[in-house]
């Protein structure tokens, strides 16, 4: 009985130290470790793709009068990385940060406000100013048109349908095919 306990102690001493002195020294996570997502809010368009992708519903997108409110509640985050995968702007990256202990849960939450654009005709929300500016520039380059030649970027889907024939005539005069 005693000998077996001694043998056990011997084996443990022989193995040396296997744990870190953490938290007295830093712990470096291994390659590929998924920690807390990092936001670069300057890149955020407010499109909400991250919110749609998030399985734990950490990210809430709501429209207020003039602004879109993006709330990131990383206290519920499961570190799956879907939001970073979805973000079209690379505004979310997965860090290796995992030391998230805090006295207040609000420390894990971030709220951002982005300017909204409402339909020029009916006031329905179209998108954020950043989305529309980005599209105007990108489409102008890719399609070789003037950035201000696309008034519909500021119209909601319903109003676009209602003026769809007029829009079409602007784009393609009748004579072209008559």
């Amino acid at each position, binding site marked *: 009985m005693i000998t077996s306990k001694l043998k056990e102690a011997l084996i443990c001493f022989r193995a040396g130290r296997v744990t870190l002195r953490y938290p007295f020294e830093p712990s470096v996570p291994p390659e590929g470790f998924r920690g807390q997502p990092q936001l670069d809010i300057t890149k955020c368009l407010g499109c909400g793709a991250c919110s749609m992708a998030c399985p734990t519903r950490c990210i809430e997108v709501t429209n207020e009068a003039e602004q879109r409110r993006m709330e990131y509640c990383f206290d519920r985050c499961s570190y799956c990385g879907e939001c970073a995968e979805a973000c079209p702007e690379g505004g979310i990256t997965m860090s290796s940060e995992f030391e998230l202990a805090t006295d207040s849960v609000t420390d894990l939450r971030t709220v951002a406000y982005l300017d909204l654009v409402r339909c020029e005709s009916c006031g329905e929300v179209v998108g954020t100013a950043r989305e529309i500016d980005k599209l105007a520039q990108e489409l102008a380059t890719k399609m070789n048109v003037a950035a201000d030649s696309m008034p*519909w970027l500021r119209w909601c889907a319903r109003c676009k349908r209602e003026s769809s024939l007029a829009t079409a005539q602007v784009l393609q005069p009748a004579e072209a095919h008559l």
Partner: protein
Amino acid sequence: MNVLYLNLTRCIYCRACEVACEREHDGISRVAVTLVDPRQPVPVSCRHCEKHPCLEACPETAIEAAPGGAIIIHTRKCISCGLCVIACPFGAIELDAGGKIAEKCDLCEHRQRDGRLPACLLTCPARCIEYGPLDDILAVARTKPGATFVAAMGETGTVVTLPDRSVPGV
């Protein structure tokens, strides 16, 4: 290169195309018959534009210009950012009810695969919608009363004949 033709002198605002589209696409219609004027309904759906802002706007590769001319959304690649919805000049793309996936006319890809024409044009009681090669469609459209034009961005896409709705009398 097959395109849709909307002979708008004939549209009667019955919305059969909406109900048919809805049946063919799991309860979500990708065409919305819209009054552009109190007396002029237009079945608005994707115009399958030659110059396609939706495709250019998509940050993923979820929107494809298929070889036949159709613009197709690959829903499995859609990240639901909604940029194509803003980019479409005609209001033909919308996110589905859950805000998850961008939905639009796919010219009944699933039907065409086994040789059937899109449901909207088959069901249209007034024979307002037709479908065929662009040149044939333009040849037919020019014989109809009203002004004909390509109602899309670019040189090809949906062709429309627009009537003059002035009604003399009372």
